[in-house]
């Protein structure tokens, strides 16, 4: 029933006859899963309508175990797909036929929080939320907050270079990685980067692995940068009768030299779904809702909130609600937080995309998405990070309806083509994986693609690391 199954046109995937017993000799046999009932549950990640089936799953507990598995796989030419909690949204951790799934969730220790250097050192399988909590406990902040942070692993975040709601002000995962421990395709272990803020000794190789989706090496440890926790926070919620007014508000806020920590929006379809599901009293005739949040020093926060309110009104907001306290801030952000839940309930299949354009082109992009949806008779709800141009057009469909799925494909292609035309990209924070592989050449061009391929060939000459992802 799944739409896309993983097929690879390479000789490499002839299943190894002794794969399971060989691996069982390398680590505790109990941590090598091969029964059908286990394999079926590692056949997917958070991506809609894409699946595969592994030959076996291994759960290493140390870097040394990872090394032994990689050495073995490299020698025998067996593909390895590395994963954490499997919450990816581009199919990056879908198993490769005949391959090993290397699941790092048992390497989940937070090794050190260094308050003097503002760093946190953790194993790749550590849960993002636990890292955020550890930082919070020390009065610090780990800013990247991807939607799946309650269960996503930090290794997965780095491999996908995840974003989140605070991207506009704080940047993304890449901006907080100071160092990595990586197991290379030949089994060598390298440590890249350190606690120094400045370090220009050689190429910045850690950056090569950030967002590499498990195709260049296996990240086993991560050294993160933390920042002081902002003392105050304030949220505002504005509704607009026209999408362009919401976009104007965003532009005017940036032009007024305010960088809010969140600037999130919902479109009409999303507003209706949220209201139907959460009944939070949103105006159903609104074309757009904008959630704005400022954080930092209390005095600055108060001033920024005041300015943002005035700007929103000047730009034509129908209503602007300003939170009086933290509790009300939380209530105002309910609408944004419920967006995905509300959309996901509408139909059996929910395809979450993340086309991204420069901030200045947002209105054009949003209008185009609405026009495409109408033309292909599709329900598309769009919400996302208006401050950084990262949109989440969400297709509400049913993968069993083949005719509709074909229209989804067409619409998706049109949306990506248009995003590229506006100077944007096919993925802002989800990665390419399998889901966007076919759109990559158009997005980055032949020369860039060939550079990517050269790099892959140099780093992984036998092509054992997550083959067939990002590109063939």
């Amino acid at each position, binding site marked *: *029933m799944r739409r896309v199954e993983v097929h690879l046109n390479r000789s490499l995937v002839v299943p190894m006859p002794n794969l399971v017993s060989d691996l069982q000799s390398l680590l505790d046999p*109990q941590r090598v*899963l091969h*029964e*059908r*009932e*286990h394999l*079926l*549950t*590692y*056949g*997917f*990640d*958070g991506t*809609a309508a894409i699946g595969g089936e592994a030959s076996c799953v291994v*759960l290493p507990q140390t870097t040394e175990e990872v090394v032994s598995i990689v050495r073995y796989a490299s020698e025998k030419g067996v593909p390895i797909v590395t994963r954490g*909690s*499997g*919450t990816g949204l581009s199919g990056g951790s879908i198993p490769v036929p005949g391959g090993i799934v290397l699941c790092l*969730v*048992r390497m989940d220790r937070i090794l050190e929080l260094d308050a003097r250097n503002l760093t946190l050192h953790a194993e790749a399988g550590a*849960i993002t*939320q636990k890292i955020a909590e550890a930082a919070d406990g020390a009065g610090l902040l780990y800013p990247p907050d991807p939607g*799946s942070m*309650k*269960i*996503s692993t930090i290794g997965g975040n780095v491999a996908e270079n995840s974003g989140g709601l605070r991207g506009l002000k704080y940047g993304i995962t890449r901006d907080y990685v100071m160092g990595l421990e990586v197991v290379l395709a030949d089994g060598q272990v390298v440590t890249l980067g350190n606690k120094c803020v400045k370090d220009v000794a050689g190429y910045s190789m850690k950056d090569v692995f950030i967002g590499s989706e498990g195709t260049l090496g296996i990240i086993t440890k991560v050294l993160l940068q933390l920042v002081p926790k902002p003392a105050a926070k304030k949220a505002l919620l504005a509704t607009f009768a026209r999408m362009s007014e919401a976009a104007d508000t965003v532009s005017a806020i940036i032009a007024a030299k305010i960088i809010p920590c969140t600037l999130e929006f919902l479109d009409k379809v999303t507003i209706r779904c949220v209201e139907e599901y959460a009944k939070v009293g949103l105006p159903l005739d609104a074309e757009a809702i904008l959630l704005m949040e400022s954080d930092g020093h209390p005095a600055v926060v108060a001033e920024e909130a005041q300015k943002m309110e005035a700007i929103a009104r000047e730009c034509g907001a129908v209503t602007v609600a300003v939170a009086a306290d933290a509790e009300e801030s939380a209530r105002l952000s309910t609408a944004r937080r419920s967006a*995905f*839940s509300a959309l*996901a*309930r509408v139909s*059996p*299949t*929910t395809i979450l995309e993340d086309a991204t354009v420069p901030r200045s082109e947002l209105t054009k992009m949003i209008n185009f998405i609405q026009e495409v949806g109408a033309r292909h008779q599709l329900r598309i709800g769009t919400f996302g990070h208006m401050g950084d141009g990262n949109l989440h057009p969400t297709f509400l469909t*049913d*993968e*069993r309806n083949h005719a509709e799925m074909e229209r989804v494909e067409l619409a998706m292609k049109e949306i990506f083509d248009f995003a590229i035309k506006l100077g944007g990209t096919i993925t802002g924070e989800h990665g390419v994986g399998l889901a966007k592989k076919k759109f990559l050449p158009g997005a980055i061009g032949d020369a860039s693609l060939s550079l990517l391929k050269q790099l892959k060939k140099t780093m992984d000459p036998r092509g054992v690391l997550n083959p067939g992802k990002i590109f063939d």
Partner: protein
Amino acid sequence: MSEQSVLQSESAVQHRIEEIGRSSPSGPAGASKYLKHLDFSILQQCIHCGMCLPTCPTYDTTRLERNSPRGRIALMRSIAEDKLPVTPAFGEELYFCLGCLACETACPAGVNYATMFEEARADIEQAGVLAHPRRNVIRAFTLRFLFTQPLVLRAVGRLLWLYQASGLEGIVRSWNLPRLLPAWLRDLEPLTPRVQSKFSDELIRAKERPVKVRARVGMLTGCVQDLVYPHVNRDTVDVLLANGCEVITPRAQHCCGSLHAHNGELEVAREMARRNIVAMENAAGPLDSLDAIVTNAAGCGSHLKHYDRLLAEDPEFATRAVTWSRKLRDIHEWISQLGPVAPKANEPRTVTYHEACHLVHGQKISRQPRELLKLIPGLTFVELPESAWCCGSAGIYNITQPEMSKKLLDRKLEKIRGTGATVVASANPGCCVQLEAGMREAGREVEIVHPITLLARAYRQERQGG
């Protein structure tokens, strides 16, 4: 025990739980009759985003995908799609699941896990993949006999009471006779709840009226509640009366069928639902004449509310079941909706609240019990960290999966200890039995009580001018 041996035994338990979570016994597989015919969109609703993983007690313990809600759904879906037959490993997996429904609360896509879980277990039973002589006998005796015959159940309860109250139990224990039992039964012996001398029918009249009637309600007394905590039923009636409800309580009530539905006996569950509807109609007239049908047991309520779904295909009962479900209220929900009368008497104790899974996750009732507790003057309410995390009781899970159950109980007791409360309120007889056993074993003097009992006490004290 020294610290080291505690650590060793903890890691042994962890190892054993992981073994169970991984367990893939060989054995003949069967064909699916339930999952295959289940509306596929229910299975398809899962978007495998993983948001359920951190809230699932089994996944949290083993971190194996198979032991997670989305993993289990993937297996169910594979069965529905003919990619996998009903195998013994699938059976083991679905009985490793607590059925706590924390995943439903966490799910952004509104997946109906409860239905899938029941259908899956029904498939496992009809396929017989877990068949074992001892298991078969126990199931036949409890599910098909004991819990379908209200009079027999109460007679057995009476015998158990006699055994406990006569001192015979004490003698048996002091002579260490339980050692003669097989190990699996011996381990269960301390869990045996204390049966009470009087059951609900002796404590509650068929019809009780307050001075001024605000509403007319039907009262469900349950079966475990009726045997072990009949006073909670009395307290519930008192709270209803204090809030102006006329209460109609059918006699010798049947089990609501949740035990059956959760354990793969969907047909028996349907029969129990029909009997309960008829019993309430006989006692109170058409269901529409009632303002509410009230239950105080979370596990029952979560099931009772879905009689509409359970009997949807039954031409004779479908409409009546819809009315039933529409009227069904958990007691906290109902009193809250009615606008509770605040008691005036003082209860100067520190109370914390453990949320029964089937109240918070199964029925999404979380605010109301806390509000009712806070209504009691003098009572100090402290929040319990992880209050919505399963205590390991989970129906008969503490019997079928003692290791995992014990691990969850220990975690819960630890959190309770941290609150410093001397009273733990919880609204499910299963949780109460589990927590009482845990406190007994730990030698701790903490009262486990239904929130409604605290409220009833306050009203009573007030009447007595206390």
